[in-house]
């Protein structure tokens, strides 16, 4: 009845047994104890359960756990590098971009998927990209500012790194 699944979660190989009817969200939360992904609607309309699956943003409530065999999953627990927060996490704190915090993991994962592709995304693009994530506390203002700020930070870091690279090279 249960299916053996070998997958990679936050860069760690993971083996698990899942019932085919279990969603990835259920398995992350109930079997693996990764409760950072939240259930807000369980039908793909709020984004609280967002994870990145093979580089693409998905709602983990709309994926069967058995489907992730051989794939790469990134959850909110894998966004920081050890104790070093991701620029998005840092900006969410600095900009007060969370109130109750239940939607925050989903927003940060969604925004990461955006900035990984488009660190230069502008306000219109950020608002469009985040439209699948509901927040009921903030009115989105500070969330959008935090994502824009994190994008700027990531661009800065990238250009500093490449500048350093050149300096070292010559």
């Amino acid at each position, binding site marked *: 009845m249960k299916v053996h699944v070998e997958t990679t979660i936050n860069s760690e190989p993971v083996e698990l047994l899942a019932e085919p009817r279990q969603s990835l969200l259920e398995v992350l939360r109930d079997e693996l104890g990764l409760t950072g992904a939240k259930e807000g609607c369980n039908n793909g309309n709020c984004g609280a359960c967002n994870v990145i699956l093979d580089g693409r943003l998905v709602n983990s409530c709309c994926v069967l756990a058995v489907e992730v065999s051989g794939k790469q999953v990134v959850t909110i627990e894998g966004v920081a590098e050890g104790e070093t927060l991701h620029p998005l996490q840092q900006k969410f704190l600095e900009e007060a971009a969370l109130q109750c915090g239940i939607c925050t993991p989903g927003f940060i994962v969604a925004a990461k998927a955006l900035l990984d592709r488009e660190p230069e995304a502008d306000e219109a693009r950020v608002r469009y990209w985040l439209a699948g994530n509901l927040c009921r506390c903030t009115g989105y*203002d500070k969330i959008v500012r935090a994502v824009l700020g994190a994008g700027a930070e990531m661009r800065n870091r990238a250009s500093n790194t490449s500048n350093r690279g050149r300096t070292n090279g010559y």
Partner: protein
Amino acid sequence: MVIEERKTYRVIGTRPIRHDGIDKVTGRAQYGADIRLSGMLHARTLRSPHAHALIKSIDASKALALPGVKAVVTGADFPEVADSIEDMGEAEGSLRDLSANVMARDKALYRGHAVAAVAATSVHVALEALALIEVDYEVLPAVLDVRDAMRSDAPLLHERKTASIAGESEKPSNVAKHDQFAWGDLEDGFGQAEVVVEREFTTEMVHQGYIEPHASTATWNSDGQITIWTSTQGAFTIRSQASGILAQPISRVKVIPTEIGGGFGGKTLVYMEPVAAILARKSGRPVKMQMDRTEVFEGTGPTSGSYIRIKAGATKDGKLTAVQSYLAYEAGAYPGSPVTAGAMTHVAPYDIPNCLIDAYDVVVNKPKVAAYRAPGAPAAAFAMEQVIDELAEKVGSDPLQFRLLNSSKEGTRGPGGRPFKAIGHEQCLRAAFESEHYKSPLEGPTRGRGVASGFWFNAGMRSSVTVSINPDGTVNLIEGSTDIGGTRTSLAMQLAETLGITAEDVKPTVVDTDSVGYNDVTGGSRVTFASGMAVYEAGMDMRRQLIARAAELMGAEAEELEYRDGAVVHKTDESKRYSFKQLCERIFERGATVVATGSVVGRGVGGAFATHVVDVEVDPETGKVDILRYTATQDVGTAIHPAYVEGQIQGGVVQGIGWALNEEYYYNEPGQMLNASFLDYRMPTSLDVPMIDAVIVEVPNPGHPYGVRGVGEVPIVPPLAAIANAVYRATGVRQQKLPMSPRRILETTFGLE
């Protein structure tokens, strides 16, 4: 933007990182559904598919026979409780009603009413078991609309009589209560009026829409100790409701609040907590219960739909002379709508010499309402602020200037009759009038600018905290107020200000009901205000104790010392001083410690006003309203953490935008909510709103040591009317019904049938 001069503070007014922040951006924070206990079962609820039905019998034998099912509960498992008045967090209600709302007995009063629950080894098994429970219903006619429910031939939900100032009515009715407020001479007031406007308005039920569905976990040990983990705005309130419903002594019940994923008033009542407890007792195992999103919509408390009629008169010079209001609010299945608050708040922004308000609390076959951000006020303001707007137009006045001319100020009759102390409505109006937004031109054929004001009382109630020092000069702040939007930090900052230390040197923790003195709910915009007072009191207690310790260390008399800038200093010899940190070290070196407490019943509530300005564009082809620009001014007293104050304002505004434009409980005739999902219950997304410019006005509240007023609720009061006024300016048509959906705009304005 922060305007108005104020006292200089060292911590208050800064923007430190919130103490619980890292846990919340890394996914570590534990919310209601994140609780896992050893041997835990999973439970789900069976709900009535009918809006009104007698429950003739329930047969759960097939469910119990399913492998993995460990317990089933129905109404028969609940003790009969007295019809006593119970604390509902932000309101009061009957314990018997609350118990029946948690689990129906002989009658289901709305679709979604819980009728049974199953605990099983997995969620899937519990859900399969629910389908095996056989309930024999006798379906009764349902009544869904407030005005229909008030008719004498309406189906009755309860055989109860109307309570009113004149006593009880003779016949049973769905009207649970009739309140009346009157002052001045109405006839005289309308006699003086040269311009009169009278309109009626309707609003539909709307939900708070918190993103976290309800989740509760319970254990019931053989010694009778009940422990409940739950996502709630008030652990103590849940404790008292649960102990009442379970008929267990309050000392047997411990409530451990988890992090809460939004509440807005909706997490002040028990739903699954007593059910999980009974399932735990029957199964002998911990039981976790969760709702799915549809259950949240159908089975928890939204806020009332309403019918409101307002007649108001003014002189040609624009002075209000009289207001008469009729408000009827849907309570849902049991009495307790916020109609009285609506009645009291909608006239509060103005000095009205003659007034008569009738308010009716009416039961209908829909979910029992719960508090929702400034409960009762937004719908009433939707009506009142449009009537004010129309009067302003008729006398040829700028809508903000008209409001300014009639604004309540210190000394004006406040809601309830006592005069207002220092309040900031005039300042909000001026800030709006002087805003860059209001001064900017707005062009385009179907664009309009609207304004509206709003008032909310704010609550005081009980708060208790404990503060203890650590050897490294930091302090632990133990509190019992659920932190929904950063109150750990707004309280820590007030303690830091009082003690002259940094916000980071305060470690705030929200604890369970066994571990701190009593705290009422996080609601009524009260925590930063009232728990802030408790924190201040604890801080002052700490200062007195530290002075006494320092006196011992210095060999001085306590009277010779004072607490200043985070240190105990000798009044005449400043070289004798101990910084807070030094003192903590010394106290621990001497094998001692210091604990201080603060416990208050919050008095000196300030009352909060807000004035909003909004620009809209209406698409004449589709009827869609776009929010182009939004500015919200609000008197917050003193902004403790301005970023979180702005956040409250921005969040309230966007909830208001949702309520104004698209949100509603959409019912079919038999009483089924057809849009009970986040797909069709259309809350605003990031793409539906612009940046919200929050203008913080600070008129310090004289009733609070740091001048704090409640902040969280009033921002949802003006948006409905502000947007309606803007739509009027854009189209020339008054919007008397919510939501102002594209369909409604096409119908009211562009001739659609």
